[in-house]
């Protein structure tokens, strides 16, 4: 087990290092001068020189890279080239919107995919099962922005139940209003991610239903459904956990699009604005933070899977 944790941790560090190099290089191989790009076409030479100075562009690439990474390790994500504010504090502030949104979306997605995925497997080959997996297939093809617009039309414009956009200025000091403004965005992501997840749950359940212990339980007098619900669900839950790591990436993309759709002041909306402003130092750190989240959660999911699943433990022993 210790060996597994060590190797998994090492792989995570290696992954983060490779990711940081790739992100750094992607923003350095620009057509032309980085400082010129950031400053814009109508900038004065003095402003361009100031930007070059502040970015340390006059120094060799490896020096620049290690200064950036050194700062990251101390929790310093650099300063915005446009506004000068520290990136770390801005991310921390916007995370108050993005993290609850992502978490809520995931819960909604799981609440949809779990029961309906198992139901789709149990009703396989019958009309109900066909309708369930067919709608999941169709929903997974829906662009998240369109789903959001349709929900806004129904629940904000027609029914007037939930706000169509924005986040309360008071933030979480008014938890009711904050939650209300996150509900429709979270349902948007949750439905689409849930549809994608439903198909995994369905095939995981089908896989478990084909296993010997379900047949044994059925032979001992349980119904197949009863056997699955009492003995099979832990195995299904395990496969869902292992898929969640992949789902995180989709969840992040969903928040970027949905935050723009609902004008929520989160990390995704900030990233889109920073790309527009060519604020390269901010974009660089933001993309790394988002990638790090995906990599870290992927590793955690692996470790949890290994800790919980007795079969996987035996393999290492």
């Amino acid at each position: 087990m210790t060996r597994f944790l060590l190797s998994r941790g090492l792989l995570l560090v290696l992954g983060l290092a490779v990711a940081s190099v790739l992100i750094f290089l992607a923003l350095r191989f620009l057509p032309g001068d980085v400082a010129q790009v950031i400053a814009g076409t109508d900038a004065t030479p003095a402003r361009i020189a100031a930007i070059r100075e502040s970015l340390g562009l006059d120094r060799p690439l490896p020096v620049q890279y290690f200064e950036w990474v050194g700062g990251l390790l101390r929790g310093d994500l650099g300063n915005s080239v446009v506004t000068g504010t520290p990136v770390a504090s801005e991310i921390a502030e916007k995370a108050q919107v993005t993290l609850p949104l992502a978490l809520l979306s995931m819960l909604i997605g799981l609440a949809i995919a779990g029961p309906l995925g198992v139901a789709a497997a149990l009703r396989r080959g019958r009309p109900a099962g066909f309708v369930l997996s067919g709608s999941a297939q169709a929903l997974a093809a829906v662009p998240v922005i369109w789903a959001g617009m349709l929900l806004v039309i129904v629940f904000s414009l027609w029914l007037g139940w939930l706000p169509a956009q924005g986040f309360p200025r008071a933030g979480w000091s008014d938890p009711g209003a904050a939650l209300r403004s996150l509900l429709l965005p979270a349902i948007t992501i949750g439905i689409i991610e849930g549809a994608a997840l439903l198909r995994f749950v369905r095939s995981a359940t089908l896989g478990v239903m084909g296993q010997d212990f379900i047949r044994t339980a059925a032979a001992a007098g349980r119904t197949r459904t009863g056997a699955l619900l009492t003995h099979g669900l832990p195995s299904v839950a395990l496969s869902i956990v292992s898929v969640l790591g992949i789902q995180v990436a989709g969840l992040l993309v969903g928040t970027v699009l949905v935050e723009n759709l609902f004008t929520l002041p989160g990390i995704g909306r900030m990233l889109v604005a920073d790309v527009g402003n060519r604020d390269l130092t901010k974009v660089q750190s933001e993309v790394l933070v988002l990638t790090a989240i995906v990599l870290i959660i992927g590793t955690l999911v692996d470790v949890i899977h290994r800790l919980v699943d007795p079969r996987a433990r035996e393999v290492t022993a």
Partner: protein
Amino acid sequence: MSGFSRLLRHPAGLFGLIVVAVLLVAAGVSLVWTPHDPVFTDSTRRWLAPTWEYPFGTDNSGRDIFSLILAGSRVTVLVAVGSALGAGIVGLLLAAFGALTRRWVRESVAVLIDVLIAFPTLLIAMLLAAAWGGSLLVVIVAVSISFGVNIARVTRPEIRTVLAADYVLAARASGIGSWGILRHHVLPNIAPIVIVQLSWGMALAVLAEAGLSYLGYGAPADTPSWGRLLSELQTYIGIQPLSVFWPGAVITVTVLGLNLLGDGLRDVTDPTLSEPATSAGGNA
């Protein structure tokens, strides 16, 4: 041709084929003819309800939404085909490097694939857009990288299996070089998997284009695109809510068609794999 006729008898595959055919015809027709000029604005025709003349109605500046969608299919086809080509090249190169080279190169490529898998397509596209500015090329390159890695991950073990087979050993013994083995034994064996993956990859490309054009980093301002149309119509969602229905519906049907085409191709080329659903879904 037997594979193709089996695909025609596969309901999902047939649906996918029809969607792709309609999309190609729409894009082709729009090159020479649209019912109205898609970019012509006329303030006297604002927000017309759907009629025979304007099947999907008109938008805030009097443009015919049906013509805009017809013309927008060109961008969709361009991005889908461009991404499929790019992803195929990236994927096969990475897979070949990860399967054919010395051990330390192979292992490094495997780590690289694992890391790149963690980058969502949209994030790669945003990174490229920050450096190069938004464009359709950025969308194509981003999907090529992210889906190419996916193809590499799926085909790499397959290539290694083929290389370890006895008939490859026999081919080697009879003096056929690495290139010949690659062309005559490896490519034919992995082609079905790659084609299925490419179909799913095109679905992802359509979603990615819609998302990025919606954010303003995809199609340029004067080019009709489904994602751009969605963002333009969203501004007036309070005035004419149902107009956003059309572009979203065509994106959904296109993505569904490409996903189902991939499912159909998978079932037709390898019936043993018919159960697990792995086509592109959720967010790009």
